[in-house]
Structures are given as C-alpha cells and as structure tokens.
C-alpha cells in the first residue's frame, strides 16, 4: 500500500491546524484514499496505475488545502464571538464568555489585582456600613407588631424640655382617658444592690407597669410576667434578665420561686425574660431585673414629679395622627384642670423604633451615602483602567469585528468581564467588611441599641451581591459602549497604531476624572466639617478637670442606710479610709456625676423676688455633693466657700450656686448670704443660704449649653442621697480602682461598687458617637482621596504615554522641558478645576443634610471649603506631576521612532 498519509499531511501542513484535528483529518482521508486504491485494484487495475489515479484525485483544481482552509480554522486564538450563523445561545455563550473572561483576567494579573482591590475597598466599605444599618435601622424590634408601639411624652418646650418625662398622675389620667391605645405602660430606672449570693453586685433595673411586657408581647423564657394585682405597693416580686439568670444562677429553672435580697429587701423571682428585651434608655442602662412599678399613694398623686417613660400600643384602627390629636386633647384638658402643673404642657407621641434608633439615623444614612460615593470613585477608577486597556485591546477587537463578531455579542463579552471583576471584588470586599466590622464594633458607642447584633447575614450577602452586580454593569458600561461604537475601518487604517480609541475615549476618561474629583470633594468636605465639629466639641471645657479623676458608683441600700445620719457615717468612714491611700490627692462624695446623668431639676423660690407664673418658672439643675467636691473635681470656686464637715443638719442649710444662676437671680449683687428654697415661696421647706458660687459645669454632653445649677450637701437634705465617690489622684486613676474598692468593702463588705472608670473615659464617652461618625467619615473620605489621586495619576500617565510622539516633536522643534511640564500639568489642572466647579456646589447642597451632626461650625463653612479645595488641588498636582516629569524626559529620537 502506498503511503497516502504523508501525501495528505504534506497538504495539511500549511493550515496550522491543531495537532489533534490534523491527525483526525489525515486518518479519515488516508482511509478514503486506501479504500479507493483497493477498489481500483479489485477492478484489476495495476498497482502503479491505481496509485496514480488516487493521487490525481487529490490534485484536482480545487486543492485540498484551499478547500479545507475555508472550513477549518487555524488553532483559534479567540474562540469567542466569531460571526456564527447559529442563533445565539444565552447559556452556552455565557459559559464561553465567563471562561474567556477568566483567561483575560488571568493573563493580566496586575490589572486584575488593582481593579479587584479598588472594587473590594468600595464594596467592602458598603457591606460593612450596610451591616450596621441593617442591624440598627432595618431589623424590626423584637416585639409583637412593633409598628404599633409608640412612646408618649409630655411636651414642656417652654421650659426647655420638648420631650419631658411624664409625671405619674398625668400618666394615670392619660391611661384612663385614652381611646386610641390598646394599652399604656410606664417604667422608670432603678438600681438594685444584689446581696447574699456571692459578691455583692449593683444591678441596673426598672420599675415597670405590670402590663408592660404583655403590651410589648414579650414571652418569658421560664415562669411568668407580672399580673395586675402585683402593681401594688409592698408586692416584692422580680423578673430576671436571661443574661443575669445564666451568669449568676447558671440558667437553673429552679430559680423561679427563689427569694433574692435586693436593696436589703426580699424579692421572689417569678420569671426570666430574654435578653433581647431592651427598653429605651438615656444612658448605657442595661436592665438586669424588673419589679412592678407599684406607685405609692403619694407618688400616684404627684403631678410635678416628672420621672416616667411611657410606652403605648396603638389599637389596630387609629393612625399616629389620630393618636397625637387625642393626646393633645387630653393634655389640654389636664392643663385646664391642673393649671399650676400642666399649663402649656402638651404631649408628644412618637414611634418606638424611632425613639430607639432615630438618633442614629442621620449619621448612618450619611455614612451609607459616603460609602456609596467611595464605591462610585472606585467604579470610575476601574472604568478608566478598562478604557485604557480597551485601547490596548483595540487590535483584538478590530480583528474580531472584522471576522464577523457581532457588536452586541462583543459588548456582552466585555460586560461579562467587568461583572466578573466586580464579583471578585465583592468576594474580597466581604473579607474586608468582615475584618472591618470586627474593628468597627469595638468602636461603636455602647449606648447604641442593637449594636451587638451587627453581623454579616443573608441580607448583607444579598446586598453585597447586588451592589457587585450593579457596580460591574456601571463601570463596564463605558468601555463596552465604546467597543460597540468602535470604528472598524479607522482602526484598521491607522495600521494598529495605538490611537487611544480616538477623541471619544479621551473625553470619557476625562469626564471620569472630573467626576472622581467632584465626588471626593463632596466627601472630603463632609469629613472636614465633621472633624472640625469634633475638635470644637473636644476643645470645649466640661467645667471640671477630667484628668486624674476616678469615679465609682456606690449605691447605698435604703433599708440598710435609711437616714442621712447613717449614710453620712458610712461615707465619712469611706473618705477617711480612702484619703490616706498612696496616690490619692483628695476624695469626695457626690450624687450623680456630670456626664453620667443630666441631673434632676427643680424650680426655686428666691427671697425678695416674687414667684413667677407657673409656666415661666425656670428649672434649676441640682446635685447632691459632699465636702471637698469642688476641689476634687477641679471646679473653680468663684466666690465664697464650698461645703465642709461643719455643714450638718444642725447648722445653717447652705447652697452653692453656678454662675448662671447667680447672674439670673442677682445680676448686680453679691449672691453670698442670699436665700433660696425649693418650690414656691409658700412651701414649708426651709430657706437655704448661698455660701458659694462656682463655674458652671456641663450636664451630660458638650452639645447642650450649661444650664442653671446649684449644689446641696447630701448631709443637709434628707431626701438627697449620695451614690458616687470621686478620687483625684496623682497617678493613673484606674490603678487605684482596686485599693479604693477594698477600702469601701472594709467599711461594708456587702456594699456593691460599680461603674469604676476614669472621668476622662466618661467624658470621652459623651463624644463617642461624634467621634465614631467622624472617624468613619474621615476614613472613607481619605479612601476617596487616595482613589481619586490614583485615578488622576492613571489618566495623566496614560495621556502622557499617548502624547509621547507629540512631546517628542515639540522637544525636537525646540520646546523647553519646562513648557512640556507646564502643558501636561495644565491639562491635569483643567480636569481638577472642572471637578471642583462641580464638586463645590454639590457639597454646598449635600452637606446641609448633615447639619444636625455638626457642632460649632456651619455646614457651609468657607474655611473648610477652601481648605479642602486646596488639598484636592495639591494632591491632583502631585498625581499629575510624576507623569509630567516623565514627559519631559522623553528623548525626541526614541519618541519619534516609538510609533
């Protein structure tokens, strides 16, 4: 048999087929020729003749290789998007596109890494902030039909309390008269000393209406909630929080019926509530126990004593507006009935969810907006990268178009590539978000509700997937649309010269940089304003010296220490034992401390001044203190003296007032020696003599201005109790925590000591939210600036690279290096300038939404606007300087030869 195979292979060689395919064709054709040869032989033809006939068949006019060339493709460099005739197959094409995209991404690892990193930063920031928003704003409260729940307040705006805590008598009247609510329940904070089981402990707790938990729809884990009969004075039953139950009682169900000693009284445990129950709180108050509110007869009659918080559940029918209208009617009726207490007192009804999370809403939404901006900038960067690469891929695209790939398919392919990039970015971004959240949650102020539930859950995953997809489409659209507008003949005419995809591409890239600059300007100005307000806040004087100050809560049991004499004896002994401890400079006893509690307030009568009408009677904040308080706190004494050990129940009752109080009542006189008393002139409380004037102290935060204030000695007022100890130290205050606590326990081993902290930490806690929002926004703005700088750098480098030839010619014709530098930088300045022109007015409009977060600075602060513009300009100049410098180093000979 003649060797037909080598004949055939010789003819296939020029086709450049894949080896496997070549072998297959050779096999098949060889067989055919051999069949023909045998057939000829079988007809009696000679071997030579048969061979010649068969080979002649191979060498007919349409030669084999020419015919095959029409059908068989050489080893395909791009198996995708050739103009196939078959109808497109969505799934099959997608698989093909994805495989092709993966290959392209793997082929350019540096490009892929940069793009994925930029996207991951943007997407990760979004996922992280969305996790926070999801946990705090979006998740419904853990109660039955939470949308029906509202809080009801008294409106005493005329006294400076737009949401005043209702008094018991008013609350009881509301509850009786209302028709729109299914139920109404009140509660108030109360702390308890748990003794008799291991270490004594102070527990946050509340007195609550017996119907509160049924109203909320909270089911006990074990036992029951309160029954109406238990809402009577003298009933000693208690509900435990799940966390306390597990921590102190090992989750033992037999705790039901057990008798606990709380504030030296015996309470019977009737149930355990899940720890998800969190009532609204002013301060970081974590309920561990609940007891029935059980108003005493005296309490229930009180209309001037405002200390309740009230939750109500709307009936299914009435709207919030109807509820508000009805409550206003009731309040107006009560104002007529009890003018001395209720004149001008209205009501406020607001959804519970808003009460709990509402104050976080603006900050969170602004942060969400900020991260969206960061993502937009990342998108612009990646789009620019893709555009630059599209210019490089022009030849590939031109070839595919020339070979008949249809534009829609090509666009789809490019989009698939960008979506794959963004999905990769999403995956890496989730990693960033996870890591970021672990750090973030450590900085979240503890008083933010539901912060402990922040996590990456299904919703966050879905959100991330969604933004990754949308992102991929957004930044993929520009290059893809450019590809579909691709002018084939032009590109081919240009002979494959890198023309930067023409003027269209350049315009696109320039507008992306302008957008990046504009968006970063908005973010940076937002962050700048927040940083400014934070600095304003931090630089404010709280009114005392917070450094080297240790604070401890020492809540005395009312049963064990029922009167002033016994309380004084206890604290005198504690002070006597703490004072000599090494490192202690001075020690003092106090009631509630500033920045832990607003302070209670009362109206006062001043000797010689007629009482004002009830609705114009100003409130004065009062605190109970002991001797040495001002010295220890570092509150400057302006006149007179502070309390000393000689001020007792048996001597003249004194009062120390703040400067504001002094100025209000005795604007032109020395207040020392003047007399005032709580309530009206006609009340039967004794007059108190002003013995000193001190500088005003801020109440609970830096935002509210100091109000009128005064101080009584806890030793001179039966009703006032001291519950805090402050120690000024010469060493790190927290280092004295143990010795001071031991000194207290040496006086009473059952006395709980809680909230041990340095005053510096406590004050920092007051600006924790501001610091938190500021920190995050600053981080995001910084990220935006870096991304924008990278974007500007990228575009300028690219432009310079494109202009190498032009620059070379200019230099060859005698242009100076400085001119070239100027020319290049000028282009950058033009882009940045346009970015500023768009960004500044946008910032002017957008920063208004954050005016509630700002303090001591206007949302349109010109210095911030100017400063940020300068920063952006400088950064942009730096980013364009390096490529510009490179442009001046262009060797004209090389540049001219380059293309």
């Amino acid at each position, binding site marked *: 048999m003649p060797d037909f195979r080598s004949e055939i292979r010789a003819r296939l060689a020029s086709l450049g087929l894949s080896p496997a395919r070549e072998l297959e064709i050779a096999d098949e054709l060889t067989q055919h020729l051999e069949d023909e040869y045998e057939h000829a032989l079988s007809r009696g033809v000679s071997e030579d003749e048969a061979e010649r006939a068969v080979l002649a068949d*191979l060498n007919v006019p349409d030669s084999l290789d020419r015919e095959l060339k029409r059908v068989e493709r050489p080893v395909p460099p791009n198996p995708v998007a050739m103009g196939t005739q078959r109808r497109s197959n969505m799934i099959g094409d997608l698989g093909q596109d994805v495989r092709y995209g993966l290959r392209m991404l793997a082929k350019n690892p540096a490009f892929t890494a940069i793009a994925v990193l930029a996207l991951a930063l943007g997407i990760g920031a979004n996922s992280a902030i969305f996790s926070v928003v999801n946990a705090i704003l979006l998740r419904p409260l853990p109660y039955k039909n939470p949308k029906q729940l509202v809080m009801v307040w008294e409106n005493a705006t005329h006294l400076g309390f737009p949401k005043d805590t209702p008094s018991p008598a008013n609350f009881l009247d509301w509850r009786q008269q209302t028709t729109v609510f299914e139920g109404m329940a009140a509660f108030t904070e109360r702390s308890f000393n748990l003794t008799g089981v291991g270490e004594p402990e102070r527990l946050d707790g509340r007195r609550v209406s017996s119907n509160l938990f049924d109203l909320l729809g909270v089911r006990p884990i074990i036992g029951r909630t309160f029954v109406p009969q238990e809402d009577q004075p003298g009933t000693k039953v208690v509900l435990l929080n799940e966390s306390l139950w597990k921590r102190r009682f090992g989750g033992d169900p037999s705790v039901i019926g057990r008798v606990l000693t709380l504030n030296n009284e015996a309470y019977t445990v009737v149930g355990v509530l899940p720890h998800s129950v969190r009532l609204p709180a002013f301060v970081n108050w974590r309920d561990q126990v609940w007891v029935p509110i059980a108003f005493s007869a005296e309490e229930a009659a009180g209309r001037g004593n405002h200390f309740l918080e009230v939750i109500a559940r709307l009936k299914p029918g009435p709207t919030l507006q109807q509820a508000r209208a009805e409550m206003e009617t009731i309040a107006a009726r009560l104002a007529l009935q009890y003018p001395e207490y209720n004149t001008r007192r209205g009501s406020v009804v607001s959804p519970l969810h808003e009460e709990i999370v509402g104050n976080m809403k603006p900050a969170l939404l602004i942060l969400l907006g900020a991260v969206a901006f960061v993502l937009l900038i990342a998108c612009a960067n990646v789009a620019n990268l893709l555009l630059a690469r599209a210019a490089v891929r022009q030849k590939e695209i031109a070839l595919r178009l020339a070979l008949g790939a249809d534009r829609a398919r090509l666009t789809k392919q490019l989009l698939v590539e960008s979506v794959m990039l963004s999905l990769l970015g999403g995956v890496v971004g989730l990693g960033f978000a996870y890591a970021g959240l672990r750090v973030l949650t450590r900085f979240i102020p503890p008083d933010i509700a539901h912060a402990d539930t922040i996590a990456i859950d299904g919703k966050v995953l879905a959100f991330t997937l969604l933004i990754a997809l949308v992102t991929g489409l957004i930044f993929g659209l520009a290059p893809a649309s450019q590809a579909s507008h691709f002018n084939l003949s032009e590109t081919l005419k240009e002979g494959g010269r890198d023309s930067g995809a023409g003027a269209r591409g350049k315009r696109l890239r320039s507008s992306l940089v302008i957008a990046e600059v504009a968006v970063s300007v908005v973010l940076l100005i937002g962050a700048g304003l927040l940083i400014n307000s934070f600095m304003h806040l931090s630089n404010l004087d709280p009114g005392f010296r917070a450094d080297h100050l240790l604070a401890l809560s020492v809540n005395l049991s009312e049963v064990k220490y029922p009167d002033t004499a016994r309380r004084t004896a206890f604290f005198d002994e504690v002070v006597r034992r703490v004072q000599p401890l090494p490192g202690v400079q001075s020690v003092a006893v106090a009631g509630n401390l500033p920045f832990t509690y607003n302070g209670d307030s009362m109206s006062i009568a001043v000797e010689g001044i007629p009482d004002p009408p009830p609705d114009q009677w100003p409130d004065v904040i009062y605190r109970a203190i002991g001797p040495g308080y001002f010295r220890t706190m570092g509150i400057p004494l302006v006149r007179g003296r502070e309390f000393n050990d000689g001020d007792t129940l048996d001597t003249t009752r004194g009062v120390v007032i703040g400067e504001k109080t002094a100025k209000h009542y005795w604007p032109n006189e020395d207040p020392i020696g003047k007399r005032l008393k709580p309530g009206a002139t006609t009340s039967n409380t004794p007059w108190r003599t002003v013995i000193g004037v001190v500088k005003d102290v801020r109440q609970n935060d830096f935002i509210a201005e100091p109000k009128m204030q005064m101080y009584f000695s806890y030793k001179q007022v039966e009703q006032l109790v001291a519950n805090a100890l402050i120690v000024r130290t010469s060493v790190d205050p927290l280092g004295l925590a143990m010795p001071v606590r031991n000194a207290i326990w040496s006086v009473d081993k059952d006395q709980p000591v809680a909230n041990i902290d340095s005053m510096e930490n406590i004050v920092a806690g007051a600006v924790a939210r501001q610091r938190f929002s500021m920190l995050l926004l600053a981080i995001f703005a910084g990220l935006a600036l870096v991304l924008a700088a990278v974007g500007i750098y990228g575009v300028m480098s690219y432009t310079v690279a494109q202009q190498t030839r032009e620059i070379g010619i200019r230099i060859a014709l005698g242009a100076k290096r400085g001119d070239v530098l100027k020319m290049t930088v000028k282009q950058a300045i033009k882009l940045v300038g346009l970015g500023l022109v768009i960004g500044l007015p946008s910032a002017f409009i957008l920063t208004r939404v954050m005016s509630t977060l700002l303090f001591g600075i206007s949302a349109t602060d010109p210095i911030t606007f100017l400063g940020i513009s300068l920063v952006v300009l400088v950064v942009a100049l730096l980013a364009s300087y390096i490529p510009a410098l490179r442009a001046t180093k262009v060797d004209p000979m090389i540049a001219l030869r380059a293309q």
Partner: protein
Amino acid sequence: MTSPGLDRELKKGSAELLILSLVEDRPRHGYDIGQLIELRSRGALRFNVASLYPLLYRLEKRGWIRGRWVEKAGQRRRRYYRLTPAGKKVLASQRDGWLEFVKAIGRITGIQYA
C-alpha cells in the same frame, strides 16, 4: 450565469442537499457517501477527496451532521456521519427550496418533468 460566486453557491447548495439526503436514513462514512453519489447519479456527479471532505466538515461545523469514529468487528475504524435534528430541518427546507428552484427553472425554460 456569469457570476462565478453564484455558480459556486449553487453547486455548494446542491452538494449540501445531496449529502444531507444520503445520511438521512442511516449514518454513512465519507467513502460510502462519495461512492453513493457517483453510483446513484450514474457517474454524472463525482466528488473527489479535496471537495467532499471539506464539505462534510463544513456541514458538521454548522451542526447539521455529526461524525463519529466507529469500530466494527472485522472492519477498519471509520468515521460515520449522521443527520442531526438541526440538519433534518435544514434538509427539509433545502428540499423545498430545491423543488421551488427546479419548478421555477422549468417554468422559464419550458422543460417539463414527467
């Protein structure tokens, strides 16, 4: 018919129809197809290797026929082509088209078929 392109298309079109028809009822290998065309046209039509196989590959690439190596006992390994469902549709429409074409030619030229 002065245009060589049209001439080629016509030839190619009819060749496609022939091959598709031959593999309609059962799979055949290339040599078999070539023999059948020659035999059934009584020698009037003949495909050489250089034109038959590129055509087969083209049809296969379009998904109208499908080739598969088959080894039968006592025989050599051969590549058998069979009609795909897509090919079946194409065959039906090419048959109709061819019939229309022949009829049209007939109407113009006055050639009548029995």
